[in-house]
């Protein structure tokens, strides 16, 4: 029986499963509401109470809205950052480099946070490039910059793989031409001399005399490569006074094949095979004492598993915050019911049943909680958009966080839990001494 139910559940489309979960989480609210209000029509009186104490009610609603908004916003943001960073790494199938830290190389070659790393020499590059299973072996030579934008040496094939067709201009055809990322402010035809190094430690004027011209622009990729300037790897070697990968009689040539005798080395190589299984075979082959090969996606997944732990902590914090707010709201509701206890006592004196008073107070509390939670979703939606924009600016990774089913489920659970607990102030209001309240 249980297995049949489980199989049936697994067979449902994910959206349908999420919708059912949402309804299940909201069910206590509707069941309690139906039972409390059964036989009465307390809505007119609830509306009057809401209007009579509108400013106090507004404060309660805002309190709930901010609490819910922060909770759902944090969780959605973490998911957005995780997806954004993974999407930025998708084009990097397999990275081969000299032995060292995979994480350092991941940040350097995929997210363009350069570090001092050993170079992969000509023999090892030749091992990689000449492997029959390798479709593309593109050197990625980082370390220079211009006006804060990383200048990366690579091949035209890599640019086509990374970004597809250019939105402006053409690919480089000489070692002094360059292709700009989508977010680089230099227009086509601009000329620049790269600085040696990146950031505050960059040596300005170190490569004066070597002028590059922007001849093309990539479409947006949602990755730090949008702020990079891509030049032929031959150009990077030349400005550093090294052989340019080709023999003297073919020194104008760009791209592979490179001559091992004139290959100075590269920090990293992007390797691509047509089939996924070939990439696994290649990783196995290139993982040696003198080389390392790794899937950026796999390294990222390890980092994400750490982030997953952080997400759990954040989720617990979000729930705790909401529990604290719930406790505050319930305490406030008890105080509020004392505020209008004389009116409720008058209602009772006029002949209203105790359960009617109970339904009025509970309905009033449930309205505040539901309105505050809905407003919280709005707050979360706005906050997520703003925070995504700031994170994207700071990291150069396109973060497109959105509220999803997880947040809706969290809010639905919060609403149901709180409206059930709101039975307490309603019970206390119903149990008050009518005569004492009338005399108060």
């Amino acid at each position, binding site marked *: 029986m249980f297995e049949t139910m489980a199989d049936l559940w697994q067979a449902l489309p994910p959206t349908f499963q999420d919708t059912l979960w949402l309804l299940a989480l909201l069910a206590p609210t509707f069941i309690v509401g139906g039972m409390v209000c059964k036989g009465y029509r307390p809505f007119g009186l609830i509306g009057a109470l809401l209007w009579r104490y509108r400013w106090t009610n507004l404060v309660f609603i805002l309190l709930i809205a901010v609490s819910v908004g922060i909770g759902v916003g944090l969780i959605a943001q973490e998911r957005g950052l995780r997806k954004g960073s993974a999407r930025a790494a*998708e084009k990097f199938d397999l990275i081969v480099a000299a032995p060292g830290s995979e994480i350092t190389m991941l940040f350097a070659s995929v997210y363009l946070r350069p570090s001092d790393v050993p170079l992969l020499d000509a023999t090892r590059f030749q091992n990689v490039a000449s492997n029959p299973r390798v479709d593309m072996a593109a050197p990625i030579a980082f370390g220079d910059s211009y006006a804060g934008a990383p200048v990366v040496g690579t091949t035209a094939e890599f640019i086509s793989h990374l970004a597809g067709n250019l939105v402006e201009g053409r690919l480089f055809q000489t070692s002094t031409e360059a292709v700009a990322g989508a977010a680089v402010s230099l227009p086509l035809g601009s000329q620049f001399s790269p600085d040696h190094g990146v950031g505050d430690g960059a040596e300005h004027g170190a490569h004066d005399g070597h002028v590059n011209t922007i001849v093309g622009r990539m479409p947006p990729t949602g990755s730090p490569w949008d702020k990079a300037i891509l030049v032929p790897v031959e150009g990077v070697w030349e400005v550093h006074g090294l052989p340019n990968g080709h023999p003297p009689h073919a020194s104008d040539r760009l791209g592979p094949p490179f001559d091992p005798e004139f290959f100075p080395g590269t920090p990293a190589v992007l390797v691509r095979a047509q089939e*996924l299984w070939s990439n696994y*075979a290649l990783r*196995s*082959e290139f993982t040696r004492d003198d080389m390392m090969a790794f899937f950026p*996606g796999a390294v*990222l997944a390890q980092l*994400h598993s750490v982030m997953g732990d952080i997400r759990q902590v954040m989720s617990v914090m979000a729930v705790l915050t909401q529990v604290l707010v719930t406790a505050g709201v319930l305490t406030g509701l008890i105080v509020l019911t004392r505020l209008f206890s004389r009116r409720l006592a008058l209602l009772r004196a006029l002949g209203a049943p105790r359960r009617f008073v109970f339904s009025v107070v509970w309905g009033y509390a449930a309205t505040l909680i539901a309105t505050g939670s809905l407003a919280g979703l709005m707050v979360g939606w706005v906050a997520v958009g703003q925070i995504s924009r700031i994170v994207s600016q700071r990291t150069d990774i396109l973060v497109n966080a959105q509220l999803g089913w997880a947040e809706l489920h969290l809010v639905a659970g919060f609403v149901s839990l709180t409206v059930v607990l709101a039975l307490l102030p309603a019970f206390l209001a119903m149990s008050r001494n009518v005569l004492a309240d009338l005399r108060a």
Partner: protein
Amino acid sequence: MRRSILIILGVLSLTSTASLAGDHHHANDHAAHEAAAHGIHGLHAWTRATDDDHALVFVELKNESDHEVHLTGGHSAIAETVTLVGFQMQEGEAVYVPIPQVPVQPEGELDLMPNGLALQLDGLARPLAKGESFEVEIVFDQGHLMMPVQVEANNATQHSHAGHMH
């Protein structure tokens, strides 16, 4: 004095016997985590405890033959299907996609591990509890390798004996 010497010898003898027994037990323990056939050596096959109807099996493989072999999939009595899968990021989400085969070079190694290659068991006949074990038949183009699989904790990242020399 003689009595003291006898006591020391007795203690040494007991310690030695216990050590031999421990070695024997350890050797048995190792044997339970490895298998070899057709020039392929498998070590430390493991999976995570789960109540779901699917699980991933990881294992360290070494091709000790002088020719290339191809890993293609597997079979297990506790699962409807066993498929060779590879980890991939798609639209920012981690997924495992089916892979037809992976070659292993002569004297080459292939590690099936989390966020990499794995054998995916679908249609599990029963939940998998930490501490239990079951057998998986790993299929190569050259033949089959019967491999005991250890069930580790549901959040494990490696075999509990990973790093031990065998």
